[in-house]
């Protein structure tokens, strides 16, 4: 059976699939819609019982409260935002750079130990990061960087997942391109920056989003590596707001949730197509 909608023709099978997917997608989006709506609720709607799903009189009051008043958080909320943004920025920059540099020889050079290194990286994909939490803590402690930005960035720079994806993607680059650049007198360094990196834009766009989301949402590193309130990041501030759970903070809490959730979603929407292009090469042939 063929259904016509204006110019479009679809089969009934396709129609059923679309209908089912739409219902499921809508259902799965409900919690996110709720977060947005909740953040815009004036105080009386926040405490309405039964809770109203969609806000009726939207206001930005909660954000104002969150950013201006500090409640019983010891530092202004904007400091948590700064910490989160700064740490995510540094981790993304360092993580993408290290993974790209390391992936290039693994993908395009032939040297002794190449295979062994790759095996170790694959094995490391299976490490739950928290397994190394204690020795990591000891390393960070010995380095004397507990409670600094270094502690939040340095331990998270070597990401097997990132190296793996980058290496898989770089293998697609034709050897001839690199060869011809070398014949023109380019050094490996120039080849890397001028030939390889521009060709793997989808891969590093993907790493940017993956590393950003991982760092932005990470609760473990700030929980373990920081002591003072001024070094904490957004998830910890949220956790604090939750555990205080009093009436006056509900609005601020809703606004903070919104701030926490929006950047990853927006960022992903921007690079979605590149991420899918990168993931096409993610299979492990072992």
């Amino acid at each position, binding site marked *: 059976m063929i259904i016509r909608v204006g110019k479009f023709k679809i089969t009934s099978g*396709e129609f059923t*699939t*679309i209908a089912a997917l739409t219902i*499921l*997608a809508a259902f*799965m989006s409900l*919690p996110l819609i709720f*977060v947005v709506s*909740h953040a815009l609720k004036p105080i009386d709607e926040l405490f309405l019982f*039964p809770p109203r799903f969609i806000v009726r009189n939207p206001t930005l009051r909660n954000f104002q409260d969150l950013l201006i008043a500090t409640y019983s958080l010891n530092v202004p909320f904007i400091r948590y935002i700064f910490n989160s943004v700064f740490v995510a920025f540094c981790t993304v920059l360092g993580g993408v750079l*290290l*993974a790209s*540099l*390391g992936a290039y020889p693994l993908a*395009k*050079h*032939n*040297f002794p130990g190449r295979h062994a290194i790759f095996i170790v*990286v694959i094995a*490391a994909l*299976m*490490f*739950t*990061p*928290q*397994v*190394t*939490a*204690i*020795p*990591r803590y000891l*390393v960070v402690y010995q380095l004397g960087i507990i409670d600094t930005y270094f502690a939040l960035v*340095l331990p998270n720079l070597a990401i*097997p997942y990132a190296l793996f994806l980058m290496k898989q993607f770089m*293998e*697609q680059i*034709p*050897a001839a391109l690199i*060869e011809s650049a070398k014949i023109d007198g380019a050094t*490996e360094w120039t080849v890397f920056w001028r030939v390889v990196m521009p*060709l793997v834009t*989808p891969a590093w766009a993907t790493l940017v989003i993956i590393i950003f989301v991982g760092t932005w*949402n990470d*609760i473990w590193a700030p*929980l*373990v590596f920081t002591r003072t309130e001024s070094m904490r990041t957004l*998830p910890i501030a949220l*956790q604090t707001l939750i555990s205080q759970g009093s009436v006056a903070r509900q609005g601020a809490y809703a606004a*903070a949730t919104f701030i926490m*959730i929006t950047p990853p*979603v927006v960022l*992903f*929407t921007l690079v979605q197509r590149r991420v*899918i292009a990168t*993931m*096409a090469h*993610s*299979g492990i*042939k*072992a």
Partner: protein
Amino acid sequence: MAEVKSSGPGAEVTTQPRAVAEPKTGLQRLLAQYGVSYAFLLPYMIFFFAFLIIPVGVAIWLSFTYFNMLEAPRIIGWSNYRLLFLEDDIFVLSIRNTLFFALITGPVSLTASFLLAWFINQIRVRTIYALAFYAPSLTSAIAMAVVWRIVFSGDRYGYMNYFLMRMGFIQEPFLWLIDQRTMLPVIMFVMLWMSMGNNFLVFLAGLQTVNTELYEAGKVDGIAHPLQEMWYITLPSMKPQMLFGVINAVVLMFSAGFEISLSLAGLPSPLYAAHMILSHLYDYAFIRFEMGYAAAIAVILFIITFGIGQGALRLLSTKDE
């Protein structure tokens, strides 16, 4: 420019920089010839070893010691492990909770990710659906607690109670996040909601790389139904993506469960009903500072995840094809 078409997925390895005059010792020759390659790898490797590989070794060693951060570690043999399995009921409970959680949500999440990707691949408008299924995985478990606490609130106005009471399934409001029978299932539900992440994208992308000639050949061989096609052609040709997916799922299931548990049930959770291996690890390492004991917990977690990963590697191996 975005994409490079190449002849095949295998690495085309470029020849190395010119061999250098007069080979000296083995190491010098190695460095002269391949120094550039090693130099590129060096920064990653420094951090990789300092914060990942060496710590795994140290964790194994620490697990055989008593270490409280104040005195030097003291070797005590298998005592931590004995204590864990024979004396520490809460640890045994945490293993049970974690395995129950991971062995159900892991496979369900993988299957759902694959099926959703497969269905989306059948239709033409993909982007918006991909976004809708993927977006939850971008959210922070801690932040989403604001929603789940309202949905599963224990009073009659929590959405879940409200709905079930309206439909007549229950008479009294149910304490979803406090009752030990429902705490873990609620956490699993939340996990599933936010687990259609990178794996879903891996599958979605993988489906687009399946060789279309295989489908043609299948039609000739009498494969008629799309589901048959999926089972006999699509799934086998996606083994490499499956392997990557399984490995990611294992890591995700064993780490993300803790965060959801922390944000919804607290630490410790009522009657430890949502106590995860990681909750136990965190408790002993960073609240009680019994680092040796906590290291033993970490090692056991490591063995479990690594074991499952290795199993997947065997099962989904494509070496002999």
